């Protein structure tokens, strides 16, 4: 159990679904943190994974390099559970931004 009591800060690591990212912005009033691939990550080659999540849901995990944050219960998509009912993803297509009508 970590005894870290501070809130997430810019530069902290964040581990989500097996991927390591770094916090690039926080906004406590909006209960939100934004994260991105580490600076050394070849994002365009491997797919950028920039994103955001709720600050209040992040839990600290102390590591030799400082504090790493994680979201408890976040799923590992590569390990589906046996017998679970899989729910299809809802797709929202935006294909007419150029005015072509899709």
């Amino acid at each position, binding site marked *: 159990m970590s005894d870290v009591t501070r809130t997430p800060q810019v530069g902290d690591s964040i581990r*989500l*679904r097996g991927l390591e990212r770094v916090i690039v912005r926080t906004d406590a009033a*909006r*209960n*939100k943190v934004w994260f991105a691939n580490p600076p050394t990550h070849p*994002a*365009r080659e*491997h*797919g*950028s*994974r*920039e*994103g*955001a*999540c*709720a*600050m209040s*849901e992040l839990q600290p995990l102390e590591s030799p390099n400082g504090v790493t944050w994680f*979201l*408890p*219960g*976040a*799923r590992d*998509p*590569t390990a*589906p*559970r046996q*017998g*679970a*009912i*899989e*729910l*299809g*993803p*809802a*797709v*929202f*297509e*935006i*294909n007419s*931004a150029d005015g072509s009508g899709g």
Partner: protein
Amino acid sequence: MASMWTNKGAFIVMSGQLDLSSAAGLKFMLLQSSLTPLRTHNFISDISSAECNVTGYVGGFGGAGRKALASKTVTEDDTNNRGVFDAADPTQYTLGAGNTLRHAAIVEEKTSDADSPVIMFNDMGADKVTNGGTMDFQFSSNGIGYVQT
């Protein structure tokens, strides 16, 4: 039958009224096969007549059968050209016999079912009959929903 965003869901996300990564009222609810999801379903009151109603599921506004989404994230996926919404899978249900389920809905509870928008529907792929046993629901490896550009 299909998974889909509702028009209301697309609108409130695009207008900035709903932040999927941090909204506190986002919940998961179960729906019977009697409901045909429509993109024009706006509020929970449009679909609540088909909500699961067997033992082990407390429906209605604030009911424990509607489970709050935890560990919500939105991420950019430059490989597949998507913005992806995801969260932890809902915890396990134990549902009494008597319902045939087909869809789940992601909703944002506000003050009542009449003003709580339906964001999207997720298809179970086939009818699922409750029989008193446990049921686990798992979001797709592609996320609960995504915006494809």
